[in-house]
């Protein structure tokens, strides 16, 4: 690990200012992804701004009938919150399907959104990776790609967003709240928060440099049956090959977002008009234009079957 200076600011705007004015600075919250990457020298910040003491750890009701989740709320606490369990069960289920108990105790809401979109070649510093080293090429295109993206990818990058929480946030239409160095606030719809790789795969999100997430807001509850179904290589503590976050209403209408298939949580609202007709109709539209590799074409069928299983569970 490269050495770094460290500070604990006393307000969110001060934290944003500290990262903005210091070259190669990063925020650190739970640190579970950042420190992992720093040990491998994939991330090499020279200054860390610790945001743990900023008081951004409350979950509060909003005037609109939703919930405002502080950026520093730990994954365990968000999953266990009585209001989340009752009204946003898809979010509890997604969080509990991710990582391990130890990591969920440390990982934060904002940090989970900001975990790097990644692939095994991103982690292997002996291999070319446009996300790790822009312009170096993509080893995954001709490499082992069974875990990687089937849609929304580019010739520069076929990495997948590894998170579960963000898939549920996407199906719930959450909003990311931020503050910048000048104290300016911004609200970013979750649909616009994560980027597709295009020709700049090194940029995962639409945050500006130094912009700090302060909260994630959930709109008022949708009702319906909430399901998060995750298919993986082992029963626990593994990334999704495919996951589905679904909210299904009694009349069969609903919403569905997919994890493990793209550089960001994948949701096509127009495809949800087909929900009452079944999984095949939805995925045919949601995955129109998919370009799977030889290794991961199975994910298209798996997405259809996983959504099908979720819809069956919702009807039960």
């Amino acid at each position: 690990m490269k050495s770094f200076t460290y500070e604990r600011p006393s307000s969110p705007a001060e934290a944003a200012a500290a990262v903005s004015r210091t070259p190669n600075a990063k925020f650190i919250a739970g640190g579970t992804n950042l420190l992992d990457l720093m040990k491998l020298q994939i991330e090499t910040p020279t200054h860390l701004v610790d945001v743990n003491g900023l008081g951004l750890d409350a979950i509060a009701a909003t005037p609109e009938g939703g919930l405002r989740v502080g950026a520093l709320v730990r994954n365990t606490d968000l999953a266990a919150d009585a209001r989340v369990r009752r009204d946003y069960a898809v979010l509890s289920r997604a969080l509990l399907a991710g990582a391990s108990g130890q990591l969920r105790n440390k990982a934060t809401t904002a940090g989970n959104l900001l975990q790097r979109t990644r692939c095994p070649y991103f982690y292997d510093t002996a291999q070319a990776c446009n996300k790790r080293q822009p312009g170096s090429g993509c080893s995954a295109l001709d490499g082992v790609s069974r875990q990687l993206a089937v849609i929304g990818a580019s010739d520069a990058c076929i990495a997948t967003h590894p998170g579960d929480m963000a898939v549920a946030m996407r199906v719930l239409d959450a909003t990311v709240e931020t503050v910048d160095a000048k104290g300016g606030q911004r609200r970013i719809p979750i649909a616009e928060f994560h980027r597709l790789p295009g020709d700049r795969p090194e940029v995962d999100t639409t945050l500006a440099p130094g912009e700090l997430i302060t909260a994630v807001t959930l709109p008022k509850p949708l009702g319906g049956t909430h399901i998060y179904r995750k298919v993986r290589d082992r029963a626990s503590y593994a990334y999704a090959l495919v996951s589905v976050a679904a909210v299904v209403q009694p009349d069969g209408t609903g919403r569905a977002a997919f994890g493990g298939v793209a550089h960001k949580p994948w949701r096509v609202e127009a495809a949800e008009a087909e929900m009452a007709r079944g999984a095949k109709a939805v995925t045919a539209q949601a995955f129109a234009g998919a370009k799977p590799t030889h290794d991961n074409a199975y994910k298209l069928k798996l997405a259809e079957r996983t959504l099908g299983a979720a819809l069956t569970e919702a009807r039960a």
Partner: protein
Amino acid sequence: MVGASATAALAAVPQATGAAPMMGGAPMTGGGPAGTDRPVLAKVSLTVNGQRRDLELDTRTSLLDAAREHLHLTGSKKGCDHGQCGACTMIVDGRRINACLTLAVMHQGSQITTIEGLGQPESLHPMQAAFIKHDGYQCGYCTPGQICSGVAVLAEIEAGIPSHVTADLNAPMQASPAEIRERMSGNICRCGAYSNIVDAMTDVAGKQA
């Protein structure tokens, strides 16, 4: 989770040039050691197993390395050093975490319990006694992490924190074998003592109930 002292602004500054370890005796140049292999030092006070410990550490020092290399508490083990194996699990401010994936300087004022603080040979924690009774280990390398995690898992169930296998998110939790297996998935045992670990935890959970 943090004491009052932790909320005050703090900055770790590069170590004074003269005091920094030097490569081949060459003086340090440029804007300080950040971004190099040379250390930046910071002070931190932790309460470890009930004792306050004041340390001055390289900012890169993980909580695990602070315990093992600086406090000589070598019960917590370094397995993967990437949060995958759980051998480093400690209970920090009442929660189990991977001590390898957090910086010591981020834990100003934290209350930390390592395996040494759970029990000693003459006064075993019930979970330690149960691991012995049920043969919950073979080589023992993962065991301190398994035991710290096991103690915290039963507390999490007691506190009503759900898991991936909890059927009803809004009903009381049970310390069933399925729940224990899911919740312990962040602790790897290459000897494969899993079924005996489940037995040990089930035994302790039964005695607590």
